[in-house]
C-alpha cells in the first residue's frame, strides 16, 4: 500500500484527492457550478448531496458561502471551473478569505480551497482564456499552488484541503489528460511551499510555472543534445514560492530562464526574477530571461493563439541567448 501507485490522469488524481479527503474528513465538501460535469460526478454516488453543492451562477457569493462555511467548521473546496471567472470572486477571496483571520486577531480560521482551470487551444477566446495566478501573488494571507503533474496535483490538493488557510489551486486544461503513476497512499502529500527539481543540470536553471514544466523538460532534452545541461526547477507552489530552491540552483548554474504561461508583465516570473536580482545577483553570470505570453489578449483563431504561449523552441532559444 504505502508505496504502491496507480496510473491515472491529472484530473483523475484531483478527483481521487477530493474523494479520499471527503472520506477521511466529513467536514470536507465541494461547491461549484455543474460540478458533476467537471469530473466530480462519481462523488455523487458516494456522498450526501449536502456535501456536493451545485451552485447557481453566482461566483462572488458561492465563494463567499464557502468562506463562511470554512469559518464555521467545514472545509470547502470551491470549483470555479474556468479561471477567467475568478475576478467575480476576487473580492471575497482578497477582502474576506485572506483578511478575516488577521482582522479578528487570529480568532478565525479559513480552511478553504479554491480551484480554477485555465483553458487553451479550444477557441474559447479572450473571456475564457486567462491565467490569473499573478493576481493573487500580491495578497498577504493566501497560498497559491499550480501543479504540473498528476502526482503533484494529488499531493498538493490534499495538502491544500488539510491546510487551515485559504489556498488557491490553478490547473490547466491541457494538463487534465496527462497520465502517470500516482501514489495511492491516502496520506501521500506534497508539501506546500516546496519546489521540485524535475531535472538536474549545471549549465542553466529553468524555473517553470504550472504547465510550462512539460515544454521546459522538452527544451532541456533538446539542449542536452547540444551538451547543455539544464536544471529544471518545477515551482509547484507560487505563493510562498521556494526561494531557497531557486537561489541554490542559480548559485550552481549562474544562469536563469523563467517560463510562465501567463502574460509577461507583472507575472510570477517577474517576481522570481526580482528576488534573484536582489538575493542571487552575485551568482548571476548573464541576464535573466523570462519566457511568457506577450501582452495581447487571447484570440479565438487557434493558429494565432498557438504562437503566444511558451514553447520548447522559445525556451531553448532563451537558454541559448545566455550561454
Amino acid at each position, binding site marked *: 500500500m504505502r508505496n504502491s501507485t496507480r496510473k491515472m490522469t491529472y484530473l483523475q488524481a484531483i478527483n481521487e484527492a477530493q474523494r479520499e479527503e471527503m472520506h477521511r474528513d466529513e467536514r470536507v465538501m465541494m461547491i461549484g457550478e*455543474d460540478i458533476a460535469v467537471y469530473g466530480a*460526478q462519481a462523488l455523487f454516488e458516494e456522498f450526501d448531496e449536502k456535501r456536493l453543492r451545485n451552485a447557481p451562477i453566482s461566483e462572488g457569493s458561492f465563494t463567499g458561502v464557502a468562506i463562511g462555511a470554512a469559518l464555521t467548521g467545514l472545509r470547502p473546496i470551491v470549483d470555479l471551473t474556468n479561471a477567467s471567472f475568478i475576478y467575480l470572486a476576487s473580492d471575497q477571496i482578497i477582502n474576506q478569505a485572506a483578511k478575516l483571520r488577521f482582522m479578528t486577531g487570529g480568532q478565525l480560521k479559513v480552511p478553504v480551497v479554491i480551484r480554477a482551470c485555465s483553458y487553451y487551444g479550444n*477557441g474559447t477566446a479572450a473571456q475564457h482564456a486567462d491565467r490569473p495566478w499573478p493576481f493573487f501573488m500580491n495578497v498577504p494571507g493566501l497560498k497559491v499552488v499550480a501543479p504540473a503533474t498528476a502526482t503533484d496535483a494529488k499531493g498538493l490538493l490534499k495538502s491544500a484541503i488539510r491546510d487551515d488557510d485559504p489556498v488557491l489551486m490553478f490547473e490547466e486544461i491541457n494538463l487534465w489528460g496527462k497520465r502517470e503513476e500516482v501514489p495511492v497512499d491516502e496520506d501521500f502529500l506534497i508539501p506546500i511551499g516546496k519546489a521540485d527539481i524535475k531535472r538536474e543540470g549545471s549549465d542553466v536553471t529553468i524555473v517553470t510555472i504550472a504547465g510550462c514544466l512539460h515544454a521546459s523538460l522538452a527544451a532541456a532534452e533538446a539542449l542536452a543534445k547540444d551538451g547543455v545541461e539544464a536544471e529544471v526547477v518545477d515551482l509547484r507552489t507560487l505563493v510562498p514560492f521556494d526561494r531557497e530552491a531557486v537561489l541554490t540552483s542559480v548559485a550552481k548554474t549562474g544562469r536563469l530562464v523563467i517560463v510562465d504561461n501567463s502574460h509577461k508583465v507583472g507575472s510570477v516570473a517577474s517576481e522570481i526574477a526580482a528576488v534573484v536580482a536582489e538575493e542571487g545577483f552575485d551568482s548571476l553570470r548573464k541576464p535573466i530571461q523570462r519566457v511568457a505570453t506577450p501582452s495581447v489578449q487571447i484570440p479565438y483563431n487557434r493558429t494565432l493563439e498557438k504562437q503566444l504561449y511558451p514553447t520548447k523552441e522559445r525556451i531553448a532559444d532563451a537558454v541559448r541567448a545566455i550561454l
Partner: protein
Amino acid sequence: MSLDRPRQLELFSRMLRIRKFEEALIAHHPVGHLSIGQEAAIAGACIALRDDDYVTGTHRSHGHPIGKGADIAPLMAEIFGKKTGICKGLGGSMHLTDTTKGLIGESAIVGGGLPLATGAALSAQTRGTDQVSLCFFGDGAANQGTFGESLNMASIWKLPVIFFCENNGYAVTTSVAKSHGQPDIARRGDGYAIPGVIVDGQDAEAVYEATREAVERARSGGGPTLIEAKTYRFGEHAHSLAIPISYRSDEEINHYKTERDPVTLYRAVLAARGLGADVEAIEADVDRIMDEAVQFARESPEPELQDMLDCMFSNPINYPPRFEGLTEDA
C-alpha cells in the same frame, strides 16, 4: 400597432436565418452554443427595435446579430476564425458582434452584459437621444449579482432599457427549478419596481408584442421593463459538449422539437394568412445566403499577428512592446 405583413415576413426570415445559420455550422464547422429552439424569442424581440437601438448578448451569441439584421457572411467567417469575420477572427462563436446594427458586445461572462446594456441606456438618456437598449441574458445569468444591481440602477434613473431573459429552463445541466428560489424570473422585477412580463418564447408575435410595449415605455421615458421569454434549447448546452449526466428527459426534448418548434409554428401562422408563397421564397433565399456565407468563410484568409496587435488599443502607447518577444515570433 401589430406587425404589418412585410415585417411579419422579415421576422420569419430572421428566425429562419438563425436556424439555417446554425444548421450550416453543424454541417460545416460544428462549434459553439446554438440558439436552435430560441429563434422566436430572439427575432421577436429584435424586430421591435430600430437599427440604432443597442443590444447586448451572451455566449449563445449567434442569434442576436442575425435577429438584429446583421449580414450573414461576416458572422459565418468569424466562426470559421477568418480575417473577414465580423471580429477579424479574434472574438469567435461566443462574441458575434456587429456594431453597425447596434450590438455592443456579447458577453461570455454570464451576467456581464447586464451592466453594459444599462450603461448604453444611460448613455442614450444622457446624450438625449431616443435610442433604447435591450439586454439578452439567460435564466442562469439572473442569478449573477449584476442582475439586481443593473435592474436597480435602471429603475432609479428610469433608463430606456429592456432586460430580456431567454429562459430556456437550464444553465448547462442546472435546471431553473434547482437554481432559482422561484421559477419566474419576471417576478424579480417587482423588488425594483420594474414591470415583469412573462411571454411564450416560442410565439414570435407574442414576443414582438411584449417587446414593442416595453420599447414604447422606454422611448417615452417610462423606464425599464423585465421580459421573461419561456423558451427551450433543442441541442446540448454547447455543440458536441460531452455531458456525463442526464439532466432533462428525452420526452421533454421531443415535446419541444415536435410541438413547440418556433420556426414551424410561425411558418404555419403565415401560411394560414396566405403568405405561403412568400415564405417559400424566403426559404430559398436563406438557403442561398447560407451557402454563399459558408463559401465566403471557407475561402477567406486567416488573421495575422499584426491584426491582433492592431485591435488591442485605440491609442497605442509604446505598443507592441518589442521585449515581449512577440515580434520575434511573428
